[in-house]
């Protein structure tokens, strides 16, 4: 009986204390701060769209691709455990240019889609990338109204451009084939 009454009053005094310490707001500290877990007084809410917790610059939240550095090697798509990267490559007729680290680009990316709804944030793609063009950024808010908006399209080629490049490549192949054929006939004629 005594224990009941004293525990009731103990509980009531704790809630009373919290009721009146609510004027103190939480400080927005990064999780690495020493005082992050020591804020026991006051309200704990972060009013998200208005306030944001500071996050590290090297956060690993969303994938981003620097297309200028991409050599379309398809390694990221192959290593992805959930197959969320979809790349369609077109061979170029000649070297297109160089990436910032000096690798020669020989492929166009007609399609470079990453489905962030499937992505499991393992980061394997960023490890295998030979030119380090695919990276994880510190952007974590990616709410969209339409689920298709979660498929990020990084390719900067229009379908017409892609079709033209494809045609050029086919033409080059055809020319080479013709040249090969001509060379073979010439060889046969000589014998």
């Amino acid at each position: 009986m005594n224990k009941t009454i004293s525990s009731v009053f103990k509980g009531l005094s704790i809630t009373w204390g919290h009721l009146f310490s609510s004027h103190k707001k939480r400080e927005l500290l990064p999780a690495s701060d020493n005082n992050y877990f020591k804020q026991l007084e006051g309200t704990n809410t972060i009013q998200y769209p208005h306030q944001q917790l500071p996050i590290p610059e090297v956060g690993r939240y969303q994938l981003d691709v620097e297309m200028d550095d991409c050599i379309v090697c398809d390694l990221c798509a192959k290593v992805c455990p959930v197959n969320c990267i979809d790349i369609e490559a077109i061979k170029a007729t000649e070297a297109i240019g160089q990436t910032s680290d000096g690798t020669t680009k020989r492929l166009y990316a007609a399609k470079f889609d990453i489905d962030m709804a499937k992505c499991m944030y393992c980061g394997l793609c960023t490890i295998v990338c030979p030119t380090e063009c695919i990276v994880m950024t510190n952007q974590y808010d990616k709410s969209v109204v339409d689920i298709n908006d979660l498929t990020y399209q990084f390719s900067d080629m229009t379908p017409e451009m892609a079709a033209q490049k494809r045609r050029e490549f086919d033409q080059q192949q055809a020319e080479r084939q013709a040249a090969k054929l001509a060379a073979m006939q010439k060889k046969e004629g000589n014998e």
Partner: protein
Amino acid sequence: MNFYLTYFFIAIGLFGFSALFALFGVYAERKVSAFIQDRLGPTETGKFGSLQTFADILKMLQKELIIPAAADKLLFILAPAIIFIAVYLGFAALPWAPGLVPSKLNLGLYYIFAIISIETLGILMAGWGSNNKYSILGAMRSAAQIISYEIPAGFALIAVVMIAQTLNLQDIALQQGILSPEKIKFAGFWDVSSIGGIFSWNILRAPHLLIAFVIYFIASLAESNRAPFDIPEAESELVAGFHTEYTGLRFALVFLAEYSMMFLVSMVGVILFLGAWNTPLPNIGAAHLANWTTGAAWGILWIMVKTLALVGIQMWIRWTLPRFRVDQLMNLCWKVLTPLAFACMLISGVWRLWLM
């Protein structure tokens, strides 16, 4: 003709008051619970979220009224109305200030107790009519709980009535201040008829009534189905208890009844134990504080302040204590509160005979 106009005016006024109080009560409850749990509560709608409950009621009004296919339609539709009307009618006999009472009933207290026990009937109808196992369990628990707790509450009230010798709430209120027609003694020996203030309140006039007040307060929590006695709507076990199947306006009525009930039981407690609309300030020598702070407007102010303080304590208790188990609930009622209340009633009889 004017006669009837007054009736309608008072009825609409009381309804408006209980609706406004429910809106305020829900907002206050959400803020208090949030602060107690180190949250912020509603913040977005209006300044400090103050328009949140208005937005909620607008949402409720627009919702579809769903009647489950297997429900007993008549009982299901009638139940929220009966639950609310039972509580709402209770307001008719409550005095607000000297000379200001909606209905001067000489059986006021008896009437209130009779009319709010009809709420149980509404709750049973809601539970049975929903044809849902959670609802019927909630309704059964509610009926068992309310009927059990009416006994200690009743004894505690009788303890006051024996001191006051009247069931008229306005007369009980009059006796606890400077307007009293009879002699008032603080704790049975000091005549405070002309001093008034807090010394003439019932809990100090006969100090055992303080225990009776605590018993009544605990029992009133159970009667209004508030935590820690909210087993009829125990969310973790019964979804929402007897109002699981209700939507839209019908659900709003049940909610309105719950908050009106909170106010009603607190106000009855204030009238019987805490000096009703009388001022807490006594006359001290030349400073006639009690005389200066007695009147119609002052009366409404005092009774509102006291009642809202009790409602606040109800909320504070709700967000502190965990829910009782059914057997603990019955233990507390029958083995602790009922004998204590009975003892208070006996002391009241002796007090009346020897000390008044």
